[in-house]
């Protein structure tokens, strides 16, 4: 006996109720449960759909689907971090390294010459922070809208839109600089410090640009490479 379309739909709802929000994981678990229920029916045709489902769900253990979800998230986060790293490396290879060096030298010259170097630095950093938070806020809205319209959510897409686990570090350099702001005169008087700070700021700018611009712009491409079913769903 095979499962009917409404029963398959019920299995999707069942996975959602057990905290699996992402279609890629849902569809794999639904197929697993459906196969297992069909095997149960071969051995015991009198078993109801719900009874068979309960038996199979218990086989996932006391944590239900959580272990599968958490490990999948970990694997995809690692993949995302790898993507970010690949892009960063790109900025230190030919030809982009020219841009990295130029940006560092331009920032270094500005910070070195201007008497308002502390404020310029803070201003640039604030612009970067506002931009980052705007993107985070916009994506949160987009996610809420997707949830309302019950559009399919893909785990890797969510990781890209949540900016992996990297988004949290945006505030960190600001806090550090805030601690140092009282000593800005000493700080900006030292050429090596200014050069280091310029280089660090450029790398940070590149990182924010990769996380919030380059990778999200290629989401479709990455989803197609990650999920063969994504192409089928989009047809």
């Amino acid at each position, binding site marked *: 006996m095979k499962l009917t379309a409404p029963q398959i739909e019920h299995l999707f709802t069942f996975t959602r109720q057990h905290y699996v929000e992402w279609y890629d994981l849902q569809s794999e*678990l639904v197929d697993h449960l459906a196969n297992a229920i069909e095997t149960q029916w071969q051995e015991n045709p009198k078993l109801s759909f719900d009874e068979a489902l309960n038996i199979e769900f*218990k086989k996932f253990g006391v944590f239900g689907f959580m272990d599968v979800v958490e490990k999948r998230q970990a694997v995809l986060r690692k993949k995302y971090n790898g993507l970010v790293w690949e892009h960063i490396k790109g900025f230190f290879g030919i030809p982009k390294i020219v841009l990295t060096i130029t940006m560092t030298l331009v920032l270094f010259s500005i910070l070195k010459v201007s008497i308002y170097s502390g404020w310029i630095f803070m201003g640039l950093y604030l612009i970067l922070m506002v931009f980052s938070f705007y993107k985070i806020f916009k994506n949160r809205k987009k996610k809420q809208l997707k949830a309302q319209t019950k559009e399919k959510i893909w785990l890797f897409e969510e990781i890209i839109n949540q900016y992996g686990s990297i988004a949290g570090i945006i505030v960190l350099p600001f806090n550090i600089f805030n601690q140092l702001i009282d000593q800005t005169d000493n700080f900006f008087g030292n050429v090596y410090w200014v050069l280091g700070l310029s280089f660090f700021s450029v790398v940070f700018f590149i990182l924010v640009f990769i996380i919030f611009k380059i990778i999200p712009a290629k989401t479709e491409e990455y989803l197609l490479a990650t999920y063969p079913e994504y192409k089928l769903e989009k047809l």
Partner: protein
Amino acid sequence: MYKILMYICFSIGDCFVPRNDKKMKNSQLYKGSLNTIIMKLLEENGKMYGYEITQKVKAITAGELNITEGALYPALHKLEAEGILDVEIEKVDNRMRKYYKLTEAGTKETVNRLAELEDFIRTMQSLVNPKLEF
């Protein structure tokens, strides 16, 4: 009883549930071999889906070993991320089925891992059952 066994299985991070309660402690010995078992099965069968793998292991070992679902899928996803497995999707009976198969690199890696496992078995055998020479 089964529930308790599953709980213990998860607590110690095991991947297998042996058939008999008495053999519970043995399941730890199989833990490190889950990936190799999956790769070996895929080498023999070409492409397989998750449920099929659990059933195949059950059939080969005459029900002696059951791969737990909570361990199988993380292992498959990890192998996929490492480039050892590739995935294929087919629509079967009004649902999507995800098949796993070895990549070229995965096929080479399977040979290495099987050789490693065989070495391990030989070493263990000589330790557990040493042939003493006088």
